[in-house]
């Protein structure tokens, strides 16, 4: 065991040494200015790669799921964040519906212990869930009947063309009146509740679950109901308030909204679609591929396959170059002088976001009980369950966390790259290569792999331009690195042997 560790250490030292020599050579040959500019570009790319690969590697490490929907979730995060930032009408238009259904489902935690204890005849036990499902479908159809989702999706499109500086509320369009709208979340709440009834298998005493944390669960449900009502009643007022807000604050909120949306999406996907397939891992691959197609098509349906440009938040928008960081923070310049290189400030923010995410994961995995449980679960989930820990909900959480990080990466990248349905695909590809280089399941490996790939891409681009080679060289460089790493260490830099 100790020998293995030393071997791993030596591999990393050699890897870093090679990297250092390469960097030194490049520095000497290209000069400081070019080197700094290219290195910073590389770090920007590397940060984006890490945001995608962090979730991929966590999900693979714990559940052995290759998530091919990860790039799509990256894209979805970008769209939701972009919508929220430019004109939140769409987000606030659909939020009451989603929250209402989720609130209904949340009743599961409190009604299941009671429903399973009911004395029902066998035929009634079979009939009740079916009846409930039929009602759920009717309610959901009623709730979304005549719902103008395309009109809602179009609200932010206006913002792309109009200047909103003078009057931020210029492009707000009137929405369906509340007197009619309130029925939709109401029906969905009922639908969610009935779905919870159906899922909890009334009368099936074998399904018995202990009523735990009852007060906490009721409080959660109460909070969700209040949230649903607030979101429904003030849905237009919220949009106005957000638009009147300071642009930077709005962007920070957009980051949170996209992340939260990713968290919710991840939970739904894991519980409803992935969980039934854990014993058949091949089908999970097909399932995630299918999910990615559905998400892409939905986005194309809502916003057409065009590419949109998200406006940079004001902190990174003012024209002119800042000489120092303090200068930039004071004047919100678009570019900053770093060692004589004029570098866009927004890209610095992306680098910062990537590093913050790495710190967050490191702290989560090493300092918290949850991280400890995840590390134990990677080795032996059955034993973790045998110690009284709910492994299923841990899987759900880790999946949701991975998706949320991808969504955060998406909105982080949105002001930097065009927002379009296929924007996540190349990041997913690079993310997979990163995970393979770093070793499947290792977040440290993913971080180092992502930075390596980002730098390779940037310097590859630079040399391709300098020696007038095809840009394919830069794209191939990442795969070449992967091949070399796999030849030297088949399990990846930080991977463990099977």
């Amino acid at each position: 065991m100790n020998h293995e560790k030393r071997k791993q250490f030596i591999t990393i030292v050699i890897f870093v040494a090679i990297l250092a020599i390469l960097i030194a050579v490049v520095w000497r040959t290209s000069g400081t200015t070019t080197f700094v500019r290219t290195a910073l570009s590389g770090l920007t790319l590397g940060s984006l790669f890490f945001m995608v690969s962090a979730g991929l590697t966590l999900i693979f490490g714990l559940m052995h799921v290759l998530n091919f929907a990860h790039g799509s979730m990256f894209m979805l995060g970008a769209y939701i964040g972009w919508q929220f930032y430019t004109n939140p009408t769409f987000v606030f238009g659909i939020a009451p519906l989603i929250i209402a259904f989720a609130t209904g489902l949340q009743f599961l935690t409190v009604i299941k212990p009671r429903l399973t204890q009911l004395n029902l005849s066998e035929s009634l036990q079979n009939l009740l869930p079916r009846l409930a499902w039929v009602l759920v479908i009717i309610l959901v159809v009623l709730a979304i009947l005549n719902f103008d989702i395309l009109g809602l999706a179009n609200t932010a499109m206006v913002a792309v063309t109009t200047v909103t500086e003078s009057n931020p509320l210029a492009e707000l369009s009137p929405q369906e009146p509340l007197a009619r709208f309130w029925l939709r979340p109401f029906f969905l709440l009922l639908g969610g509740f009935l779905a919870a009834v159906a899922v909890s298998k009334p009368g099936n005493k074998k399904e018995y679950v202990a009523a735990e944390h009852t007060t906490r669960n009721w409080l959660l449900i109460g909070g969700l109901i209040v949230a649903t009502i607030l979101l429904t009643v003030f849905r237009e007022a919220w949009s106005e308030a957000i638009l009147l807000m300071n642009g930077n604050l709005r962007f920070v909120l957009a980051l949170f909204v996209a992340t939260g949306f990713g968290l919710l999406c991840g939970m739904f996907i894991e519980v409803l679609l992935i969980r039934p397939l854990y014993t058949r891992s091949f089908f999970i691959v097909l399932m995630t591929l299918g999910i990615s197609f559905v998400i892409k098509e939905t986005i194309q349906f809502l916003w057409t396959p065009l590419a949109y440009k998200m406006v940079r938040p004001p902190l990174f928008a003012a024209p002119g170059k800042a000489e120092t960081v303090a200068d930039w923070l004071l004047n919100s310049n678009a570019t900053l002088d770093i060692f004589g290189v004029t570098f866009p400030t927004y890209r610095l923010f992306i680098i910062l976001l990537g590093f913050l995410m790495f710190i967050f994961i490191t702290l989560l995995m090493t300092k918290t009980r949850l991280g400890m449980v995840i590390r134990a679960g990677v080795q032996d989930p059955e034993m973790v369950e045998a110690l009284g820990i709910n492994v299923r909900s841990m899987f759900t959480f880790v999946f949701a966390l991975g998706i949320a990080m991808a969504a955060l990466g998406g909105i982080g990248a949105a002001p930097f790259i065009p927002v379009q349905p296929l924007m996540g695909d190349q990041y997913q590809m690079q993310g997979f290569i990163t995970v393979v280089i770093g070793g499947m399941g290792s977040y440290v490996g993913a971080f180092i792999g992502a930075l390596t790939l980002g730098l390779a891409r940037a310097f590859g681009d630079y040399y391709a331009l300098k020696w007038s080679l095809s840009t394919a060289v830069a794209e191939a460089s990442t795969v070449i690195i992967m091949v070399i790493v796999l030849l030297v260490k088949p399990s990846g830099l930080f991977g463990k042997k099977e």
Partner: protein
Amino acid sequence: MNENTKPENLLLVDNIQTYIGQFHILQGVTVEVPKNEITVLLGRNGAGKTTTLKSILGLTPPSQGKIIFKDMEIHGKRAFNIVNLGIGYVPEHRAIFRKLSVMENLKMAERKRGDLDKHADFIFELFPDLERLYKLPGNHLSGGQQQMLAVARALVPDNDLLLIDEPSEGLAPILIQQMMEAIRKLSQTTTVLLVEQNFIMASQLAKNFYIIDDGKTVTNGKMSELIHNEELIHEYLGASVRTVKQGDKA
């Protein structure tokens, strides 16, 4: 029921049937575990002893039969819910978390905050080695130390029942002796259901025995009677007979 004549059962496994994949592993296992006593499951390799433990825990849920723990039906519940009712599990092959430190391994078993602090003294009294190794990762421990850690982990929360699977497996004789002492000590406060191939250890520790063969319980009784029943031992435990005789001489 008169409590003086018949000890109260903490756990009752009633004629369970368990499939693993397509294999019908348990075809009718019945075990009663009286409170505050050690009960041992005996039988050849592959007879279904480990599967019985895992069926009780809900890790391989039985398809038929009943399992009653503390007067509650627990079959069909999720494993983590069953365990949280107060069952500690020491798996075979020392399934500790190798990448986690000794402390983290013990912390993993906490059900509420402070469980470890509460029982630390008792655990380190049984296994003084662990206190010295507290910060080391699991894969730096020797086989015997890993086994001790596996047992210690089951002692962290308040448990009413311990399921211990082959604690002597692959241990040197002196360590087996130490392990036996530990199990005897902890059985003063907890009920134990033991699976053990080492007949000497089983016969010295346990009060009651069950013999499982081909996924069925074939016979049961008091350990004191089994020791003298060479025919039965020979039929179901085979190779163990010689060890018994050697053990008697020693």
